[in-house]
């Protein structure tokens, strides 16, 4: 089982992520508080782990834009996904991380659209 060096999102999910980040960051002035892609990506994976449901395969090709070493420097995502036992035998853990992120970003986007351009964090996180 060889782990990938890079993982990402489908083109569509990537565009959703960009749109959501623009909307979220427009509400704060301080550049320190602006969110970056990694932040929502990791959160999407964490929510997936919380749901504890094996994510579906990604239909389209993914744009492998994130280096795993930067996205998960202390391997917390890897360890959590592995412990949650969401992967098949011999299946790379980071491929599951990628699927969880794809699913999570799509869920965020749906909530964002349903909630008139705002992500209802209280519903998603609690």
């Amino acid at each position, binding site marked *: 089982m060889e782990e990938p060096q890079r993982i990402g999102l489908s083109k569509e999910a990537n565009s959703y992520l960009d749109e959501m980040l623009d909307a979220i960051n427009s*509400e704060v*002035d301080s550049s320190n508080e602006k969110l970056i892609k990694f932040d929502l990506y990791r959160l999407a994976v964490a929510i997936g782990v919380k749901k*504890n449901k094996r994510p579906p395969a990604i239909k389209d090709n993914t744009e492998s834009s994130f280096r795993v070493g930067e996205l998960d420097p202390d391997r917390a995502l890897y360890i959590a996904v592995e412990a949650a036992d969401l992967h098949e035998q011999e299946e790379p853990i980071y491929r599951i991380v990628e699927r969880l992120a794809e699913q999570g970003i799509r869920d965020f986007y749906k909530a964002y659209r349903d909630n008139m351009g705002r992500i209802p964090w209280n519903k998603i996180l609690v």
Partner: protein
Amino acid sequence: MFDGELLQEYENLLIEESEQGKKIKEHIESVLGVPALVHARDELKVLLKDARNIQRKDAQKSDDLKSFAQDQKILQVKLDSLESDLNDLKEQKEDVQEKVDEIDDYLKGTDAVQAKKIEIERLNTQMENHEARIVEHQEEVQKLLKTAWKDVLANSVQYIVEDLKNQRNAQQKELQESVRLHSKIDSLRASLIDNQVCETCGQDIPESMKQPLRDEMDELEAIKANYNVDFEKMAELTKRIEDLDLIRSEGEVNRISTHVDSISRHKVELTTVENELDDLEEEIRGVDTDEIMRQRENKQRYERHLARINADIEDAENGVELNNQKQKRISKLIAQSQGERGLLSTKRVERLELLETVFGEGISHLRNSLRGDVQSYATQTFKRLTTEKTYSGLQINQSYGLSILDQEGRVLSERSAGAEQVVALALIDGLNKTSGKNGPIIMDTPLGRLDPKHRKNILQYLPDMSEQVVLLVHEGEIDSQRDTKTIASRIGARYEIKRISATQSRIEKVV
């Protein structure tokens, strides 16, 4: 001549320090003749000043009194300067007061608009505060969102860690039990092999007693064989637990939830404020509120200026008073000297000082006496006009403001607009009678604020107020048949203003 609808402004007299109250008091005293004595005292002051000058010149001629004369001269120069400053300050005060009055006229009737404008400013500040709080909370949320994933992960793996720990504990228990059995078997074996003789009595242990030990050892061996301690699995469990324990959080999710709740609360309050603002903006649409607020600020600025001028006037007046006392003392010292005693200039100073004192005290006496008379006449009138017979009378203050006294002689703190008008009419009648000048009285809308009983009382009393009373009443204020029945014989003539067009009307005598 007065406007009945403006009688409520008479309340200003009750505020003894108000500028308007002071003005009304000045006018009242003018009608009552107080200025005659005040002017006389001022004239005496001028004469006294001249007399002191002559006295000083006489003293200059004496070697003994030269230094007094010099002091007196310096004091006089100072006094001239102080009086000049005082006059300038009083002129300044009049100018500034005039500006305040002009603004007051402009602002009259805009109280409601001003209050709304102030409320709008307050709501705008509130709105800015809510918006600022929302941004602060949003920034906090975003800051927390950066690491919230760890909190979500930590909570999610918490159950997994628990499960892994349970597995490891079970393994550890098996290991402990296995070790315990092993140790016990070893001990039994040692007893059988090493201890052939009893340690207590030294005799050989018979075979019959060794067999149970052997049986027990066999049994324990059998139990031990069931324990399957997997050290590799234990090490793996420990490693996984340690890895998962590294996923630590700082309660981001709960903190985000608190901030999101605060944002919602501020948004609801913001909407409420915005709605209130819309309503208020709508109510003052078309009114030049900026100009009103500018004038209001101007007024406040002028009032601060007035307060400074008043303080300066008080200082200057104290300076004048002090200077007068010093001059008086020096005059006395000069008068007491051997050479000066009996001189005409000294006698003149002494008499003028005496006269000034007499007039000064006379003014106070006159004022007190006039106020007493006004209070007494006004009380008589008030008792005839008021419908509340338990009132014991009226009490006058330094600026001719009248308070109603209840049956226990206590001042009533609150009174109705009707009572206000009755008190004001009583004051006018009291002033009229005290002044001794019995001229005609002309009243515009005299009964507007009154209930039927008060109206009846006043109409009955009017003929006694003056030889000639002219009432200007609007339609509805008075029923000419019913209300004037009791005084019909005292009415000289009635006139009506007949409308002809929007720009023309005619006065007609009513038969």
